[in-house]
């Protein structure tokens, strides 16, 4: 069933919201700037709107509809309790500029979540306001830069980033005025410690290491890396995208981490929502803590206080403000509801099961696909495309064929250090039955590819989706980024 654009459904004069009549507009108070031309928005009735979005939703895949073996994204079950809590009128119908004594419960939400994040990571401080993972990265680097500037070390402008890092790492570094120096990987899929040490020097501000790394492996020489980094006067920024693998089993403070962002929408199960909103609180070490951005909550007498200005920060040296208001509060409520539900025991069990599930996939698929590295993995299993050699089938084709079997594709071509990567993160909320079903399908597809002659069939996939493969080249070459009156379907 095709679904038109809202612009094709509208008819002037309908309305989907009844608005009370207003007295005539007082042009005096508009500086003569009343809008002259119509906006051009379509008019629809409520039944049309409800049907439109219901039908659109049916063209989407979600965790609620099936398994998402995406690497590096932790697409786990999103509890409905969290959604319910995030709609308690007493929590959400609050304005950030209400007098603080009228929002003590909201400050308690922030403070309680911060308490858990600090407790779980073993870190003394957390900046709550970053809006997403990349935002948190940048926040951590800003604190590092502020520290160095404050300590007369503003010559430290180089950042060491492993080749396998997420693209946000170098991008965030660039936004702090840093240059990026890539560090190679070993054939064990880990940071080349010797190379890293060789690159450390008095101009290095920090290293940015993802751990567990993007190959799904724990950096087993992490203590040595941290020690060398600190010895060189640099900081250790840890990309926390893969934190779900180790919550409750490792305190990142014990690894020598100075700053790490936490993706609440990954590790603490707030919904991805088709791409946001996320939240990226950033834990900070003792040294970096004073530079945390505004605002932050402090205990003050019997109550809590949100510090909004440097003058009232009690001697801290905040590097600034990273967004409007007080952080992704709606996301905080969901993360806190999840954390309280799981508890310290449940969180530890979750990371254990996440790692168990990934190793199970690795074991079950190891004989069919080609694992990139040896040994147990953490929460995700990485394969390369050697098993597709000479089949004419690419990683992309293989992944798209999964769609017709009812599964979302795994992450493809990332990390870049592996050829034709297939990265799978099953997460702890998938049952053994689901994994077994997935394994059977992947094996059958691999067998079909290996048998040869199926390349065209793979390239034609998916077939049973609302749309088949889309022409991305055309989209980029002649961009059509909006509907315009008179434009045609």
């Amino acid at each position, binding site marked *: 069933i095709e679904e038109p654009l809202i612009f094709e459904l509208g008819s002037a004069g309908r309305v989907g919201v009844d608005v009370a009549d207003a007295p005539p507009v007082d042009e005096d108070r508009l500086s003569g700037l009343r809008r002259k031309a119509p906006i051009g928005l379509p008019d629809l009735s409520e039944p049309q709107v409800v049907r439109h979005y219901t039908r659109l939703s049916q063209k989407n895949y979600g965790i609620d509809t099936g398994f998402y073996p995406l690497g590096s994204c932790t697409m786990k079950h999103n509890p409905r309790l969290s959604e319910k809590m995030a709609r308690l009128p*007493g929590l959400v119908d609050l304005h950030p500029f209400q007098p603080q004594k009228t929002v003590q419960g909201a400050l308690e939400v922030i403070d309680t979540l911060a308490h858990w994040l600090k407790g779980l990571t073993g870190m003394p401080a957390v900046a709550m306001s970053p809006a997403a993972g990349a935002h948190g990265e940048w926040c951590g680097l800003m604190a590092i830069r502020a520290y160095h500037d404050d300590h007369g070390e503003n010559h430290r402008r180089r950042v060491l980033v492993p080749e396998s890092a997420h693209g946000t790492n170098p991008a965030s570094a660039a936004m702090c005025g840093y240059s990026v120096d890539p560090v190679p990987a070993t054939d064990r899929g880990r940071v080349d410690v010797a190379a890293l040490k060789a690159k450390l020097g008095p101009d290095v501000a920090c290293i940015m290491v993802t751990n567990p790394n993007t190959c799904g492996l724990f950096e087993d020489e992490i203590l040595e890396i941290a020690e060398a980094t600190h010895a060189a006067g640099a900081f250790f920024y840890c990309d926390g995208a893969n934190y779900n693998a180790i919550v409750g089993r490792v305190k990142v403070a014990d690894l020598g981490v100075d700053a790490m962002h936490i993706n609440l929408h990954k590790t603490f199960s707030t919904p991805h929502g088709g791409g946001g909103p996320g939240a990226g609180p950033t834990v900070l070490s003792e040294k970096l803590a004073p530079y945390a951005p505004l605002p932050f909550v402090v205990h003050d007498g019997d109550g809590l206080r949100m510090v909004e200005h440097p003058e009232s920060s009690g001697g801290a040296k905040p590097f600034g403000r990273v967004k409007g208001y007080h952080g992704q509060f709606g996301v905080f409520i969901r993360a806190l509801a999840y954390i309280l539900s799981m508890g310290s025991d449940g969180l530890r069990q979750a990371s254990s099961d996440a790692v168990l599930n990934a190793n199970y996939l690795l074991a079950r698929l190891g004989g069919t696909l080609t694992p990139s590295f040896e040994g147990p993995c953490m929460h995700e299993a990485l394969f390369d495309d050697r098993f597709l050699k000479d089949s004419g089938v690419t990683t992309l084709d293989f992944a798209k064929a999964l769609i017709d079997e009812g599964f979302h594709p795994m992450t493809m071509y990332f990390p870049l250090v592996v050829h034709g990567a297939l990265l799978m993160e099953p997460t702890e909320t998938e049952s053994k039955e689901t994994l077994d079903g997935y394994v059977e399908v992947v094996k059958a597809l691999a067998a079909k590819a290996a048998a040869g002659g199926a390349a065209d069939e793979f390239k034609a996939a998916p077939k049973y989706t609302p749309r088949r493969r889309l022409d991305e080249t055309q989209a980029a070459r002649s961009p059509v980024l909006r509907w315009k009156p008179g434009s045609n379907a």
Partner: protein
Amino acid sequence: MRYLPHTEADRRAMLAAIGAKDVDSLFRDVPAAARLDQPIDLPRGQSEMEVERALSRMAAKNLSAGSVPFFIGAGLYRHHVPASVDQLLTRGEFLTSYTPYQPEVSQGTLQYLFEFQSQVAMLTGMEVANASMYDGATACAEAAVMAARVTKRGKVILSGSLHPHWRETTETTLKYTGLECETLAPDPLAMEDLMGRVDSRTACVIVQNPGFFGGIKDLRPLAEECHAEGALLVVAVADPVSFGLIEPPGAMGADIVVAEGQSLGMGLQFGGPGLGLFATRDKYVRQMPGRLAGQTVDADGKRGFVLTLSTREQHIRREKATSNICTNSGLCALAFTMHLTLLGETGLVRLAELNHALAVRLETKLKRVKGVRVLGNSYFNEFALYLGEDKDASEVVDALAERGILGGVAASRFYPEWPELRPILLLAVTETTTESDMDALVAALTEVL
């Protein structure tokens, strides 16, 4: 534990398939010194009922906006959100879906993003809009960076009309980029003169309209000045409902428009998550940060949508990307576009008119309060009230709160370092404000002043 499907039998069977004796052995790459053998000393898991009780207890410590006469704005407005918005938003196919990198199974998300982009472009009077950013403040900062990239210049001028949080976020963002910020003093009378400041080093001027203190300005002369000097004009907007009544920035010559979209679809949520709207001209699209949905065709020639122009983005360009942004506010954009689709042209215009009319009504009623006056001579749905030379608005706000009224925000909450702003109270109204709310405010103000 209700979210974890494994039984002990499952775990044993899986370990056997792996060939591992226990789960601990899978963590053997973690240095022994850093391994924890026990759960961390924090509370254990709780049932739904217990978690509900804990959070309800926190909720009960707040005074919620809807329970009292409410006049707070200052960049974030309490509008009525139709019930269908939230019920559609929570459909699992929207809520639990991933970034639409696999367009074949993400046409729902991609089509609404395309519709959203179209609506934002129309509202702002611009040619093209992205699929949203974190919030208005970060969108504003991104606009400054983008203007510098487009113009290859290093100075950004921030008007005193700009929301202080947006200003601070922009200043912070530029701090280590080598770009320079020239920030003007807060401008409650909407009298500042930006014309003389634009020069050949200026990348852009950023103004807010209506301004933080409420005033509405004709930006055409400033746009001409900017363009004459080769600079861009960036216009920030705090309440998108105002687009229903006020000439859009695009029609006044803006090159980039940024706005906070929270007003539509989302409710207050203590200020987060927000929704950054970001629109510009076609010619700058490849310099624009953020995700973009575009129209194309599928293998059968049918219209479909994809994420496009990703060569601007960090996962391709890494340190050379237009921004480090890697997400948007997808679900907030959905709420926004659903609310706006329900309103339509007719509804949005009526809503904007109603907001303005009610603000005018409040101004009229405030004439009964001795010694106060509205600053400036134009506003949309929020204005700055001058309480009198010796008055401290923040004390008045507290006194009103004691009387069960959330009576606006004191300008000094944002500008503690400007004593002359101390008597200024920002008051906002929306369609949710009733006649009796206004009367209660007027009566209480009379009492406490």
